[in-house]
């Protein structure tokens, strides 16, 4: 077998290991899926009436806010899943079996690619559930199959990027607590972007941050795809962010993993 087919085979083996872990440790998966749903219901039913009126659209109110907030909640689910990965990676590294993997002639990053792929499966599942709940409470989209596919593709790429970044966080953190705290800001980035209120409504400094941070172009692109608002160059910027974060996350993770485990 070639190096590439070893890489694929070993990553698939590690993905199977990861899926088994998730099934046997299901409480983590359920928490990660439940959190964005709680936020969706909270924002639509508690804050939605007031925030929706502030959007200034023709209908106003809760229904309009549900449409507006939906992409932000999806991104929140992505961030929560990525943080879960940081914790899972960190806990895994304390297990003796990782030392065994390091002394085997396998595709070396496969332990990490297994985590990333497993986390992708988990987050995609979470996004489907969040979307289903949103539709249940009245979310409607005019998007056709192409727009839905593009949305899924972009969210998958962004998940991939954030997950690699969080793998590095998990490898760097000294314990599970630190692994959970280190990437915590990711959950707040949808708030400090266009996820929950339009950036125009923010004070200048915050608005500047909101407009240039990576979540905003992704949220705006998803919003454009699902609701038909203007996308402009947000799509390209979103893709660029995905590639850049993936590269940084992957190279950083690989470097951390290749250090001597005992120093």
């Amino acid at each position, binding site marked *: 077998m070639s190096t590439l087919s070893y890489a694929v085979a070993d990553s698939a083996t590690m993905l199977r290991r990861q899926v088994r872990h998730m099934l046997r440790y299901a409480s983590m998966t359920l928490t990660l899926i439940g959190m964005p749903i709680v936020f969706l219901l909270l924002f639509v039913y508690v804050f939605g009436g007031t925030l929706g009126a502030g959007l200034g659209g023709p209908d106003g109110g809760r229904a309009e806010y549900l449409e507006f907030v939906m992409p932000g909640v999806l991104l929140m689910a992505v961030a929560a899943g990525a943080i879960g990965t940081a914790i899972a990676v960190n806990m895994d590294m304390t297990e003796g079996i990782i030392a065994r993997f390091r*002394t085997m002639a396998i595709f070396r990053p496969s332990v990490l690619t297994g985590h990333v792929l497993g986390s992708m499966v988990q987050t995609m599942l979470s996004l489907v559930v969040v979307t289903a709940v949103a539709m249940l409470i009245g979310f409607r989209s005019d998007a056709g199959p192409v727009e839905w596919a593009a949305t899924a593709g972009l969210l998958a790429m962004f998940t991939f990027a954030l997950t690699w970044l969080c793998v590095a966080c998990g490898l760097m953190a000294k314990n599970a607590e630190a692994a959970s705290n280190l990437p915590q800001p990711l959950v707040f980035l949808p708030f400090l972007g266009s996820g929950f209120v339009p950036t125009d409504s923010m004070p200048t400094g915050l608005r500047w941050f909101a407009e240039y941070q990576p979540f905003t172009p992704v949220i705006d692109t998803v919003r454009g795809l699902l609701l038909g608002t203007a996308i402009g160059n947000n799509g390209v910027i979103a893709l660029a962010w995905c590639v850049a974060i993936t590269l940084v996350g992957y190279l950083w993770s690989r470097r951390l993993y290749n250090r001597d485990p005992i120093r």
Partner: protein
Amino acid sequence: MAITPSRPAIEVAGLRKSFGDQVVLDGIDLEVAEGTIFALLGPNGAGKTTTVHILTTLIGADAGEARVAGHDVAGDPDAVRAAIGVTGQLTAVDNLLTGEENLRLMTDLRHLDRAEGRRRAAELLSQFDLAEAARKPAGTYSGGMRRRLDLAMGLVGDPRIIFLDEPTTGLDPRSRRTMWQIIRDLVAGGVTIFLTTQYLEEADELADRIALLDHGRLVAEGTPDELKRRIPGGHIRLQFAYPDGLESAAHNLGDAVRDDEALTLQVPSDGSVKSLRALLDRLDSESVEVDGLSIHTPDLDDVFLTLTGQPANDEEKEPAR
């Protein structure tokens, strides 16, 4: 994958390793012939585990050269990894997976095809007496079962060289005997075993050659018999009720060490029943009254006392690693 008999399975020259300013290995040289059991014997903190970590490519050395199965551990780690099986001090099993799933994980990573992987996993499960527990999570296994699963996982892919880092530490006597038998069977199948242990008895039982590691240096190396000849033999300790008993016994048994305050006499002995009977016959014929008797066989402390001039376990422990 046969290695020519002239080439040792493991060759180490001038190996050094420090963690911060703590020197753990201070220039180790050793050679292990193919198809033999080599025991690295030493107390906690001597550097045994660090040696295994370097030879199994887990960590790098600061200086020196190490070749395993003919491959340089630093230059060609993947070739070394393909030739070895490792059983660590911390059992390296996945606690969330069942015994069978753990083994299938190994067969998959060794790229055996599905049928072959299933067959090999089943074979190892029955060989290591784990067939009944095959579908239970490894986290629920007893210490002995986890060690056996750990060792079985290291055997997937039929490695030619197996590293066992303290394979019986913390096991009850019965599990220890089982583990010893497993190790003997492996060598009968032609593999080379590199074993670390704190127990002289274990090294004596299993090893063809033993090296004694102390503070990162090898202080002695040889066959078990060669080493034991360098250890002061065991002795029989005689306790007397009255000074005149001690006096007459000491007079009769020339090369004994007497302690007038404790009223004891240490008579050199190999600890065999035969020598014990001879001693008692001799005391009987001289009508010497003995109050008590104990047999002392040489242990690791004796070895260390002799070869390093200090007891084995009074040094600071190696940090948990």
